[in-house]
């Protein structure tokens, strides 16, 4: 601060911020990125990385091995690269495990460690906060839905086994992307809805898993032991979402029994579940105290 001819002492104290403040968009982006880092355990101890990274690794490994066999050993006829790309989306049990891991990490942690109150004291509001969390969770899930499927599609294309013509290719690609997006959003909503009741992460994970088990087992018992019929399978949300994705991609059903259900029923089931889970989230957060 004080200056003479050849000496000066500078004030290293507090600096005012004169630049322009960024808006809510930037706040959402920062929060989503921060949450995603936390989900994958980046910047945290190694043990937090194991589960998410393992699931991520396994889903990609399956596709990478198939592609490697085809490309390095040239075994086009070995039955590889003949499936629809949709089939490469990770199986339901893996997805639900991932959702049960990721969704509580994204929102329950904030309740427990006070971040939710702090976020509410920033330009974020409840809707923008949830938007940031959805961006992060659905985005993370998209990594293990769309990622492997896209790799597989590219592999097929390079080997000339993909859709014929640019138009058809882009249609396939577009359908795949849309299906993955919607299914990821669905899983995100499902995970968030069943983990927002509690502020204990372990409990939240369990509730998400139980919500899955509690719909999955009865749907199969009812389907197999009774004469109600195939539509009862739609009470299983995750398989319904997968079937909806398959219909969007014009792909084969991953679980055979679902193929007999009409597309309109599948669509109805999908959106009924989506709306129900979103309503739960809205209801819980509307009544949640910010401070």
């Amino acid at each position, binding site marked *: 601060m004080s200056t003479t001819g050849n000496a000066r002492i500078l004030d290293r104290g507090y600096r005012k911020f004169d630049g322009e403040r960024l808006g809510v968009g930037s706040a959402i982006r920062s929060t989503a990125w921060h949450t995603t880092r936390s989900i994958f355990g980046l910047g945290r101890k190694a043990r937090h990385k194991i589960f998410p990274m393992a699931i991520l690794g396994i889903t990609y490994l399956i596709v990478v091995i198939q592609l490697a066999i085809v490309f390095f050993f040239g075994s086009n006829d070995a039955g590889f690269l003949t499936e629809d790309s949709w089939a490469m989306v990770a199986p339901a049990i893996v997805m639900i495990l991932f959702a049960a891991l990721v969704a509580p990490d994204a929102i329950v942690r904030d309740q427990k460690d006070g971040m939710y109150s702090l976020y509410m004291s920033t330009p974020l509001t409840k809707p923008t906060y949830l938007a940031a969390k959805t961006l992060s969770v659905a985005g993370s899930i998209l990594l293990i839905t769309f990622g492997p499927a896209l790799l597989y599609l590219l592999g097929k294309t390079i080997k000339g086994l993909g859709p014929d013509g640019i138009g058809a290719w882009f249609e396939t690609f577009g359908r795949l992307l849309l299906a993955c997006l919607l299914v990821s959003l669905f899983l995100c909503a499902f995970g968030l809805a069943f983990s927002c*009741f509690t502020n204990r992460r*372990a*409990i939240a*994970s*369990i509730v998400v*898993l*139980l919500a899955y*088990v*509690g719909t999955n*087992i*009865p749907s199969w*018992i*009812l389907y197999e*032991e*009774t*004469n*109600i019929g195939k539509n009862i399978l739609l009470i299983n949300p995750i398989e319904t979402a997968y079937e909806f994705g398959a219909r969007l991609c014009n792909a084969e059903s991953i679980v055979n029994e679902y193929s007999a259900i009409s597309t309109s029923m599948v669509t109805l089931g999908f959106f009924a579940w989506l709306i129900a889970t979103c309503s739960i989230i809205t209801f819980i957060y509307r009544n949640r105290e910010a401070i």
Partner: protein
Amino acid sequence: MSSIPALQAIKLTHNVLLKQLITKGRLIGIIIVGLLPILLGWVIGRQSDDPLEAGVGFVSYMGLSILVPIVALIFASASLGDTREDGTLVYLWLRPISRLSVSIGAWAASVTIALPLTVIPMTISAILLDAGNTVIVGTVLTSILAVLAYSSLFVLLGLIVKNPVLWGIAYIFIWEAIVASFAKPAAALAISGYSRAIITKRTNVDFDYLFDPSQGVSALMLIIITIAGIAFSSARLNRLEVP
């Protein structure tokens, strides 16, 4: 003002912990879960071709392997586990009452709440299965014994680990459900091994289990597990670092 009579101490502990255990959230959640077997029992009873076999399978898999242990876990692990976690244990611990009374009181509180929440839906479901009285009686009997044993085990679990619900769920789904179905020694160390044996023996439905104790041995084992669990809980209370 010396020591309090044991029965009085058990009653007091039971009353306090019972009040703490009954929360609106838990009750609603469990009742919803309890409606599920009722609904399923009804549907299976009306729609199944062989209600006896479907019914016994349903009671032993859905009821004895999932509903009973989970309900018992939620209440029993919280009974003393929560008090240790939040520090209210000191209000029972630093009193002139014996540790055994506290463990028995906690177990009794868990049973008081878990019993109706499991046995009632299971019984209704067994009635709706429409598969005869043996199934109903067998269901009631085994459910009660299983609730007693699981509650005792999970009271202890709540005093040992920090996240009892997580460990308990892992135990229920991995050990009781999967390992015990494949390995005979494991089944001999699982509550479901005995509880499932009682209902299948009573109804003469043969599921080809690896582990096949008689009804008497099974009932006795469940009671021994109950007593051992309480005894270990009280020993654990004695050595505990109370927050």
